[in-house]
């Protein structure tokens, strides 16, 4: 019993300490840049690297998941009393409310999160972060802020594209023989609530912040060598995914209930 309390205390202390270091990192990240032009260059580099480069995977996944959701919903709503266009309505709500903002963000936590953590981790173990500090550059601000801002601004665009392509995927599934595309379009337009899109975009912005800041935290404080960089990249993906799932519940409770 004594051992149990000892370990639970240690876990709590470690958790509080980690949270404290995360907040400290954030407080050092959002500071006035030494030179706006250099930060602007870093921002566009990260925008391209983390945002634009993710378009391909988001597009492929959105089209196919949109199609599969349509087929599965149609399969589960096979009832003479339910009109076919209700399938499209269900697909639209699934894509806007959950698939695009949450599932695509989880996929990005894997792609972008591991990229950020391993890049910063490699910079840490090869002393590039120390080199920045010795030069008088704030490494937190220069390396993390442009990434956070780039993804927070670009993630909503990615998610809107994902919503659009998810619906296109559903349309294609309907077109290739499930039911009439006319019913699909009717269903899409039925009882559309624009607030759902706002809700999805608010979630997206929060998720983008969590992905970039948590992954940067794990990368920035790597100690050791190549193995630790890999271990921390994995931790970054797991932690940001868990944070997204928890934040998803909290935001849904706040914004929809």
């Amino acid at each position: 019993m004594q051992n149990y309390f000892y370990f639970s205390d240690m876990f709590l202390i470690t958790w509080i300490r980690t949270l404290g270091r995360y907040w400290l990192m954030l407080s050092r990240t959002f500071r006035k840049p030494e030179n706006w032009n250099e930060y602007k260059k870093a921002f566009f580099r990260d925008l391209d690297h983390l945002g634009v480069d993710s378009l391909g995977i988001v597009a492929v996944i959105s089209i196919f998941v949109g199609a599969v959701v349509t087929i599965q919903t149609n399969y589960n709503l096979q009832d003479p009393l339910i009109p076919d266009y209700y399938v499209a309505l269900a697909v639209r709500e699934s894509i806007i409310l959950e698939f695009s903002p949450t599932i695509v963000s989880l996929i990005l936590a894997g792609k972008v999160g591991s990229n950020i953590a391993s890049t910063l981790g490699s910079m840490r173990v090869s002393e590039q972060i120390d080199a920045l500090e010795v030069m008088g550059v704030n490494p937190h601000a220069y390396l993390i802020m442009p990434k956070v801002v780039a993804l927070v601004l670009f993630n909503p665009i990615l998610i809107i594209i994902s919503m659009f392509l998810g619906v296109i995927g559903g349309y294609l599934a309907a077109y290739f023989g499930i039911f009439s595309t006319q019913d699909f379009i009717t269903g899409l337009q039925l009882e559309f609530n624009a607030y759902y899109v706002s809700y999805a975009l608010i979630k997206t912005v929060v998720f983008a912040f969590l992905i970039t800041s948590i992954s940067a935290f794990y990368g920035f404080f790597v100690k050791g060598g190549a193995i630790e960089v890999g271990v921390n990249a994995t931790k970054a993906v797991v932690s940001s995914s868990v944070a997204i799932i928890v934040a998803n519940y909290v935001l849904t409770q706040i914004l929809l209930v």
Partner: protein
Amino acid sequence: MIEVRDIQKKFGDTTVLKGITTSFRQGVTSLIIGESGAGKTVFLKSLVGLHGIDQGEIFYDDRQLGKMNEDEQKALRTEMGMVFQGNALFDSLNIEENVIFALNMFSEMSAAEKKERADFCLERVNLKGVNNRKPAELSGGMKKRVAIARAIALNPKYLFCDEPNSGLDPRTAILIDNLLQEITHEFNITTVINTHDMNSVVEIGEHIIFIKDGAKAWEGGGEEILHTDNKAVTDFVFSSELFRKIREKS
């Protein structure tokens, strides 16, 4: 001039630096020598403020490092150049961008002036025509020279080098050593170099500090080290047959 007074540094329960007191003069190449794990890198990183110290004081021309606020520390750091053991060149930037990185951040120079400065620094370290190449495309010796060029780009008053010739062949190592000494004299810089290479001691050691188990065990000039009777120093310096023969002859 850099003055160090009784500095101590602990990691957990282990005391890594045990009350080191010394000073580093302007225009002189100072070498910190000692076995691997003696505390040389921790000492150098404490000097530049990458590691906070637990006790003691560090003065940069009468400015106390520990009492500076964040902006003052940043200003001081623009007067520093550092060459890291693994070079620490930015992989994503080409050689010219690496050299002018600090200029981009802190100077008001035009693009043409920065290019001119980059060319000057690269020529000074005997590198030409590599401006657009990435660090990964260069040899170890070339990377080291780029790191030196980057360190001197902002005309530093203080230059720190951590094992600048580790992993280099003897000929390139001597070239790097001589280059560092030339730069120190030419620009009147306070230069502090960490090394465990005895060739460096003989080639460029004007002021040498020997660290053993985190404490200063000996301090003196380049000639003095060859004639000292300090057992810890002689065990370290003359551990190789070659240096024993040099001592016997001198």
